[in-house]
């Protein structure tokens, strides 16, 4: 197998993080499971948020996992791509809003 930093098989080993720190690992997975339960938001809404976040943080494991879970929840391609556009819009906005900081600095520095 070609050696890479990310291996698809490692996603299936996620649960093994508890081997080095059981208490915190167990607490994380309990919390994770609770977060994705049906609540004020539906499971479907939550997984679409997760899909957008997965792209924003550019985690390949999260992208695979959230894509699969989105399909399981019956999401269609259009909804999934819109979720990614939301992430893209916020990331783009976060970059551009710093343009104001740049502009303020320019004002301070120039005559």
């Amino acid at each position, binding site marked *: 197998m070609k050696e890479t930093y990310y291996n698809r098989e490692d996603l299936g080993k996620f649960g093994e993080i508890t081997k080095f720190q059981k208490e915190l690992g167990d607490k994380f997975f309990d919390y994770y499971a609770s977060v994705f339960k*049906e609540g004020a938001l539906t*499971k479907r809404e939550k997984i679409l948020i997760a899909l957008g976040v997965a792209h924003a943080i550019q985690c390949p494991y999260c992208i695979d996992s959230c894509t699969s879970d989105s*399909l*399981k929840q*019956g999401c*269609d*391609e259009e909804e999934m791509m819109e979720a990614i556009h939301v992430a893209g819009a916020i990331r783009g906005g976060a970059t551009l809003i710093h343009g104001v900081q740049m502009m303020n600095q320019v004002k301070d520095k120039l005559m």
Partner: protein
Amino acid sequence: MQSLLKQHHKLSNTEVHLSILSDYAAIGIPDFKEKLAEASLFPLKPTHLDILQVNMGKMCNQVCKHCHVDAGPDRKEIMTRETMEHCLRTLEKSDIQTVDLTGGAPEMNPDFRWFVERISELNRQIIVRCNLTIIVSNPKYHDLPEFYKEHKINIVSSLPHFTSNRTDAQRGEGVFDKSMRALKMLNEIGYGRDSDLKLDLVYNPTGAILPGDQVSLENEFKRRLWDRHNIAFNNLFTITNLPINRFLDYLLVSGNFESYMNELANAYNPVAAQGVMCRNTISVGWDGFLYDCDFNQMLDMKLEADKPHIADFDTKQLSKREIKVNNHCYGCTAGAGSSCGGATT
């Protein structure tokens, strides 16, 4: 698209099927029998026999890409009236309350209506697994909704998605639009609206994925079908695709077989294993042979009996049998479980 049988495909040989499915070590999963044994469920035994599921033939007007029956217009195997008479005699001498008619498209059997009328006279609940498009496929089937209504048939129909592209990708070009027309015809005469006219939909994933939460999907289907098409229905049943016939072919060709089988095995749920449908159902093949379930039927795994045929149906003997299992059974025990009536937990 032709059936695998018509193509002389290697998977039209059940021995090839079983050799692929039985090799759990090569797939990288535990033997299903061991998983049952861990939960003290091996050998798997029947509970009470509630349902007689009758496969009326492999002939169908559709050729769905995931079909575990390998049904289609080129399949000519259909149940004879003589075999149906054996089914009726079995019902008369048993307390089986539900008859589940499936296929292919069961309505394409020329004796379908005769059989339904006879079962109706015996006051049994009748389920018809209607593919919807049959209703609009030919004028001779246009009155099916009225016929279903007359006999208070519970209609169970596959609709893998509320979008046309996802549905057509699995069931064929134009199937979604025809299904919407058929559902509207059923709604117009009261199906999905009146309490005694149940119209249930079946969701099978349209790829190498497991179904999601049944309640959540049902809510989404109800919202989408009502908002976009003014269509109502009762329940949505989520059914896991089992690696048999065309779905197995898809898994092998797409390179998803091992990962899908591992996903099924990793999602093994012992609670779902307790409630598998083969414990309260017997499946009758188009030629009258008996099986523990419709999936075993497609793998030609006849049930354990001296004479596993409807003509020799012996309720007492069958209640003591060991149910035959193989690694395809992981499909019914994954996650929330899967049966012809949807999730089992």
